[in-house]
């Protein structure tokens, strides 16, 4: 272990901006992407669900 304190860890030997900029961007995008995909998935599911209800209502009306 080469860090003597938490502060030193965050300073990254003077390269904080570059190192945290890289890791931060990776973390941000790699968290955002699955969330966006999940949102897309749930949107489809919701609209499918709406459709099914509409179908059922149609059937009820007919009968």
């Amino acid at each position, binding site marked *: *272990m*080469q*860090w003597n304190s938490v502060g030193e*860890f965050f300073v*990254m*030997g*003077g*390269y904080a*901006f*570059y*190192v945290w*900029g*890289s*890791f931060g*961007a*990776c973390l941000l*995008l*790699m968290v955002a*992407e*699955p969330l966006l*995909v*999940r949102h*897309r*998935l749930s949107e*489809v*599911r919701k*609209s*499918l*669900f709406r*459709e*099914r209800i509409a*179908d059922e209502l149609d059937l009820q009306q007919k009968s």
Partner: protein
Amino acid sequence: MRQSIIQWFRFASPQSFYPLAGRMIPWFWAAAAVFGIAGLWLSFFVAPTDAQQGEGYRIIFVHVPASWMSMFIYLVMAFWAGLGLALNTRVSGMMAQALAPTGALMAALSLWTGALWGKPMWGAWWVWDARLTSELILFFLYLGFMALQAAIDDPRRADKAGAILALVGVINIPIIYFSVKWWNTLHQGSTINMNKAPSMAQTMLWGMLLMALCFWMYSIAVALMRVRAIILERERHTEWVKHAVE
């Protein structure tokens, strides 16, 4: 033999693939998390400070995996696209479409982390080096693929057109890589040379490998999630989809 392979792909219908993907996703997420935690531990707490680059070199632990994945995903995408074109299987096109954004993301990360690395090491955000340039072009190829698919609204046509583009691109990637390499090294040596990775400590290598595995698992998981969404969107009027969703 050939016949049976074709049969196998026919079986890989969206209907059977959808639940299968659903069952696999958690496992890939778990693997990504395990590899990621281990990799991060190695890269921040075990790997020693580099003699030349100080702590700045730690960017390598995300930069290299992102670069590798960006190139690898393109190959996989082109493979699926070609398969779809040749055998007319529906899932293949969807897989290709699902992979593209993740590939583009990896290319973008590679460019971003590379730029953040270049500034302290070379003193410039960007130089016109062979590797950098071909990665940039790869990024453009991804964007072109996605833009083309988005611009065609009949999914079957979009798949086929995208497949042709992906295949043309895959022929071109080696050509691009070598042309840029040549271009760069042939005449007056460029002012800055990408110094080969410093003699890598064993721990660094392990850290990089673990992170690469993490990125790999992540890519598979996200692509599978996206392909599920695409399946539902495209097959929304079939009976099985209506029953698949509660």
